[in-house]
């Protein structure tokens, strides 16, 4: 029997790895991938809670999270592709046209 804290700890570790990736990497695709990882860490937490209380709500919401992740990937990648086509760059700190 796996205790709930194990699931929560794993979810937290993955969330932190993902968050570090989002903040520290320059490449926009890497940021999107790290966001995917963060969403998945939430899924693990959801499934852990569903396991704990033998309640399916957690699993249902994990499915919704996956749907949201699919939307995020589609729109995010569309933005990146149009950005890459217009300005041919993928690094987020170069996208500073509105910053002066």
């Amino acid at each position: 029997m796996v205790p709930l804290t194990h699931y929560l700890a794993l979810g937290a570790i993955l969330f932190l790895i993902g968050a570090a990736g989002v903040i520290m990497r320059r490449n926009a695709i890497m940021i999107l991938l790290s966001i995917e990882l963060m969403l998945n860490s939430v899924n693990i937490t959801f499934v852990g809670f569903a396991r704990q209380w033998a309640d399916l709500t957690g699993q249902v919401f994990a499915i919704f999270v996956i749907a949201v992740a699919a939307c995020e990937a589609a729109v995010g990648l569309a933005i990146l592709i149009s950005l890459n086509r217009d300005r041919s760059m993928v690094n987020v700190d170069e996208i500073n046209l509105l910053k002066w």
Partner: protein
Amino acid sequence: MELVFFYLFAAGIVGASLLMVTRANVIHAALSLVLAFLFMAGLFVLAGAEFLAGVQILIYAGGIMVLYLFSIMLMNVGVAVRLRQWHRQSALALAAALLLAAEVWVVLGRGGYPAAQAWSWRLGQTPGNVEALGQVLYTKFLFPFEVASVLLLAAMIGAIVLAKRQITR
């Protein structure tokens, strides 16, 4: 036995995601993330979420990640590998992440959760997880389900509008 497999999968997930965050080449990073997702599917089976494990592989690994690889190939990543990979605010970010980690550690350290309750079904027997999940999804969560479909439609249209090449005559 369950605990052994949990640690196995957890080590796989953490290792693969660390690999993902540190790769310079985006394709390598995406493939490491796929590996992490496969381990996660194993973890979901362990937690009694068989259907979710299938969804994880089918939608996440087989759908979303292929979309990523596809888009990465459309862009030119050869140049991006040789550029500086880390943001200037990295040190600050790492400090913030470590602070967050300490906070999570304190919160989790309190513990005190009761032992897990048993599912009303057994793993690998019918009627099992799929039936129960379908039952809940189409009764109690019907409205969020429909909203999710609308969200997917909006994302689909948005993605097409954003990525479509301008037609100039």
